[in-house]
Structure formats: C-alpha cells, structure tokens
C-alpha cells in the first residue's frame, strides 16, 4: 500500500529559487526510504512539503489514497512524525519529559496514557536519565534523541527524518541508526549519510537540483561511482575498499 504519493510536484521559494521540479515518487507502507542528494538538492524542502508546512506550486501530494486537504492534513500530521534538521527548532518546553509529552497531549490522551507513552519513548531512545533536564542544556546528540522521543511518543505510522545523523559523534550516530533500524514504522530519511542509508534503507531516491535522478534498490544505486559523482555524492565509505 502506498502511504505517500508525490505527483509532479514543483516548488519555488518566494525569492524565485527553484527547489523542486516535477518530482514524482511513492512511499510504500513498511519501507525505509532514503533520500540522498548534495546540498541544496531539495531534500528538506521535499519533507516540508510532505508534512504540509509548504504548499506545492504544481502537482499534488496524496496521503493514503487521498489528496492533502485541510482535514486530511490534520489526520496525516497525527499519523506522521517529522524530525527537523535542527532539533533546537523542535524542543521548546522546560524539560525533556514535558517536551516529549507535548505531542501526546495534543492527541487528547489522558495523563496516565501520556505518562506511559512518554516513559516508553524515553526508554526506546535511551534517554530516560535526561527526563528532567532542560532541552537547551543537552548536547547535540541528546537533543536529536529527545526530539526523536517526541515523535515516538505520538506513535506515528510514518517517520520523516531530516538529516538525523548530522552533527552526531560516531557513538551517538550508531545508537540513532540502531534505533531507526529497530523501528517497524514506514520512514523517509533525507540524509548525506550514505552509510546509514546502506544500513537501514531498502530503497533510495537520489536528488539533484530539485529533480529525481534515480530511484531504486540501495545497493544498485549507491555502488555506481560515476553516477554518484555526477550527483555531487560519493559511494558510501563502507563500500570504498570494495569498489575502488
């Protein structure tokens, strides 16, 4: 079943910068899809459009078979969680616990259910010890995990992750990859971290200047050195010795 269908989407920023140009692809239930591309290729803009934070100039976004109307957008946002590139944009309540509880409370759950979900999300992301800390006192990796816990607490069907491993040290990065790898959710990961794509994604979409250059199985796409170079990317480090 298709969760998201992106059909011929075009988007330009108000200053005229073209971000996406006639983009089409689908996200299938249960898959972890990687979206890779050089800086400015339109990955983050695409996630913003999928979450309804931006509106496409042309084309349409279909969620579970229905075009995103105001009503459908609310349903989609209840069922989809997005991790922003900068976790500081996402964390704003006085403690990590309160922040993680923000989403479930907006779902109208009882305080008991909220507490259950928050504690479970903190456990899943391994940050139970940070529950009473102020979000702005955390390190970059801890902030990302706290923001991720905020998504998990909403129990979304789909996760949209924007550069989840950027700025993380190797240990935090590995922990995050393990967490994402364990998830049973559908996930779309926009990233430069092609080794992570190798580890957790089944399919990858390569973007260049707002268009899709390739959409296919991970090993097939990521091992084509010339193609990757033409898109401003390199093959994953883990494959370098085998293919150099």
């Amino acid at each position, binding site marked *: 079943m298709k969760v998201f269908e992106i059909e011929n989407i075009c988007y330009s920023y108000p200053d005229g910068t073209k971000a996406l140009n006639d983009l089409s692809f689908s996200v299938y239930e249960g898959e972890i899809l990687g979206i890779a591309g050089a800086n400015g290729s339109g990955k983050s803009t695409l996630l913003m459009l999928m979450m309804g*934070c931006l509106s496409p100039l042309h084309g349409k976004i279909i969620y579970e078979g229905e075009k995103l109307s105001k009503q459908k957008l609310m349903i989609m946002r209840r069922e989809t969680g997005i991790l922003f590139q900068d976790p500081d944009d996402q964390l*704003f309540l006085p403690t990590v616990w309160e922040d993680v509880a*923000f989403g479930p409370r907006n779902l109208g759950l009882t*305080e008991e259910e909220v507490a259950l979900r928050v504690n479970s999300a903190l456990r899943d992301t391994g940050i139970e010890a940070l529950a009473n800390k102020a979000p702005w006192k955390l390190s970059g990796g801890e902030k990302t995990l706290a923001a991720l816990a*905020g998504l998990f607490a909403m129990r979304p069907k789909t996760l949209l992750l924007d550069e989840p491993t950027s700025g993380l040290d190797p240990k935090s990065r590995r922990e995050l990859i393990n967490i994402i790898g364990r998830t049973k959710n559908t996930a779309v990961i926009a990233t430069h971290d092609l080794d992570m794509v190798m580890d957790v994604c089944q399919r990858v979409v390569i973007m260049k200047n707002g268009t899709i250059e390739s959409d296919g199985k991970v090993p097939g796409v990521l091992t084509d050195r010339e193609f990757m170079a033409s898109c401003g990317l390199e093959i994953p480090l883990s494959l370098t010795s085998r293919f150099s």
Partner: protein
Amino acid sequence: MRLKDLYRTEIYDESRGPFFSPLVLLAVTFVYTVAVVSFDRYQTFRMLPLAAYPIFIGSFARVSGRDIFRKMLTVLPFVIFIGIWNPFFDTTRTEYLGIMISMGWISFFSLILKFLLIVPATLIMVAATGFDGLCRTAASLGLPDVLVTQFFLLQRYIRLLAEETHNIVRARVFRGGKITVANAGNICGPLLLRCLSRSERIHSALMCRGFGGQLYHKHRRENRISVHDLIFVLTWVLFFSMVRIFDMPVLIGDLIVGCVF
C-alpha cells in the same frame, strides 16, 4: 553574563526538593510587592524587615544568589536613571540619622531599597517555579488560553531573539568586525530575517506535533493547595501586615535597649 544567557530563568539548584506550588508563591509575592510599594517614599528603614521574604524563599529554593545578583545588575542602571533626578527636584532639607540631607536623596535611597527588595523576590519566584509553572498557574486562574499561550511563546521567542543576536554578534566579532551604531542596521536586518525564518520553523514543528493553539490542556489544570501551602501564605501575610502596621526596627531597637539597659 553572556547575551544568550539573559533570558534564562532556570538558575535554581536542580537537585532541590519539592517547593511550594507556583500559585502560592505567585500570591505571596504579589502581596509582598504590594506591601513594599505601599511604603511612603521617605520611609526607608521601616521596610527593611521585609528582606526576610526573599532571603527565606531564596534559601529554601536553593536559588543561586550570584545569578540573582547578576540579573539585578542588568536592571539596576534603569532604576538609578529614574531615581537620580529626585535629589534635583526635591531639595527640601531634613535631618536624617543625624545628618542634614535633601528629601530627594532619601526618596532615591527608598527607591533603590524597594528595587532591592522586589526584584530579587520576583526573580526567585520565577526561578523557583519556572516560567512554565507561572503560565500553568495563570491558566489555572482562568486566564484565557490564547493569552497564556502568547505569554509562553513570547518567552520562547525572546530566547530565540537573544540566541540569534548572540550568534550574529559572535560571528562578526570573531572575524574582526566591530559593533558600532553606524553598522547596527546591518545587524538588525539579518537578525530580523533570521528570527523570522527560525520562528517559522518552530511554528512548523509545533503544528507537526498537533498544536492547536492550546499549550495547557484543561485536564492538566491541577493546583491543589496543601495545608503547608496555606500555613506558608498565612504566616507571610501576617508578617507583611505587622511590618506595614508597626515600625519593626524601632520596636526591636526598643526591645533590645529595654533588655540591655
């Protein structure tokens, strides 16, 4: 104090035990402020016993005195600027503690004393309850949700403004740039644009987590007042009333003199 730390209110010791409810602290601090302000502008030493309140809640909440002092220093110049005109306009001379002095200086001293009493108490209250606690109290007191949410988000965006200003100033200074009145416009423009862009991202993040304009949900509105809270309120209100009605320093002085001699 760094620019980006100006907004911070979490200056209490995190390991502190349970404290009084925000509602109780808000109420007592309000009565305290009214008591301090109600003193005549020429009355100085009579209000000194009121210093017991900020000292008590400060030590009880284990608020860092150094941080409170640093925050007070940022406001002090404004108070001095307002009060310093009193000696020029109120030149009537009187004898005070055995010295001939103008009434303007006494009222200036009184203003500074009021500042030294009210500001620490308010800062300690905010630090001990947290801004979130205050907003929750405001919501539980029936303040409209839209106002409470605005109040809370205002604090979030002030923090954002301070962070962005800090980043821009640091970026300039590290590359040898100087901040002058002439180039302030070059800073304010990008600052505004950066703040707008970040606040849009924050708003998007809120919307993506189902934010519907209400931060404090009705079923969370709990403000149970315990017997301890009630005793706390009554004790302090009684103390403030006594300080207001009687001249405590004179009474204590008389008592000591009576006992000793």
